[in-house]
């Protein structure tokens, strides 16, 4: 079995190559069917073994309360996050000598936050980047780190650091792939952490 951190490092790198397949699967799998949705879950075992070209997307049954259903009200934190994004968009030009987040950056950040919410992940905080754009944080705990950097041109970098002295991994990804990559990293992290 590979060491824990090498598996996580593989996660983001492998997502770019596989997301098209993943998204195709999800889009056909999230249609309602008798109150039960079938959604794809990217098993950590699949991530670990991707180095041997083994992608395993394991469909599983989940209750219809999954956040893929449009009739379920969004959580309160999501409204707060969107309010915070709107406030970032109202920063004055050259605020504090810095470039304000563009409308495009706000829209992309909003889409990422919503995508991550559908993956079950709550945003921790957001900050304007001094030379333009928005940083969207999901983990800032000791040596562990997970965030998106959204540039003013809408480009996205996924930044992840598993901790234990590892270095930060950066991947520039399109919007849909970025959310999948970060969610996979966070899911792997949760799965790899021993209970108790």
């Amino acid at each position, binding site marked *: 079995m590979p060491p824990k951190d090498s598996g996580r490092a593989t996660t983001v790198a492998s997502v770019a190559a596989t997301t098209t397949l993943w998204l195709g699967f999800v889009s056909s799998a999230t249609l309602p069917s008798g109150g039960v949705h079938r959604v794809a879950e990217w098993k950590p075992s699949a991530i670990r073994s991707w180095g041997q070209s083994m992608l395993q997307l394991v469909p599983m049954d989940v209750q219809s309360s999954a956040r893929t259903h449009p009739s379920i009200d969004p959580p309160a934190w999501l409204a707060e996050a969107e309010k915070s994004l709107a406030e970032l968009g109202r920063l004055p030009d050259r605020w504090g000598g810095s470039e304000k987040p563009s409308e495009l950056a706000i829209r992309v950040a909003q889409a990422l936050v919503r995508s991550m919410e559908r993956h079950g992940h709550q945003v921790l905080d957001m900050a304007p980047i001094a030379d333009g754009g928005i940083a969207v944080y999901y983990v800032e705990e000791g040596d562990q780190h997970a965030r998106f950097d959204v540039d003013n041109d809408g480009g996205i970098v996924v930044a992840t650091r598993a901790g234990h002295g590892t270095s*930060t991994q950066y991947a520039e990804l399109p919007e849909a792939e970025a959310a999948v990559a970060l969610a996979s990293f966070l899911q792997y992290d949760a799965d790899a952490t021993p209970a108790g």
Partner: protein
Amino acid sequence: MPRQQGNPPFEAEEQLYRHLYEKWIDAGGRVRDAAIDLQGTSVDRGLFAGEPSDRLARGDADVVAVGAIAFGDIPSQFDAPPAKPYESVVVYKPENGNDAHSEIQFWRAGESEPSKPQSKPIKAQIREQLAARMRVVCRR
């Protein structure tokens, strides 16, 4: 040690102070990468800046803290494979009303003017390396 422009010259131990907004500090009190401006990070050089607490008191109300980095702690170079690396250059640029104003700039190796990196992962790496060396020295 980074390159430098302006007189008097920076000494290795001279502190460079950066104004910090609330969102540029994480819950653990560390300076976030977002505080680094790759078009030129404005700082005040310690030689003329006075006490950080004075700077905080007279500054913008939204500025909640002052961060500091020693001139000699700034990485001299940032790798950007496969392209040429970026060099850090600290430029003393006094402004009206701020004799201490300076900038940490990023220049392509061998070039004679600042050049904001275009690669997004490289930009993120430079921000991280610089922010990690900056510490909060004073808070409201």
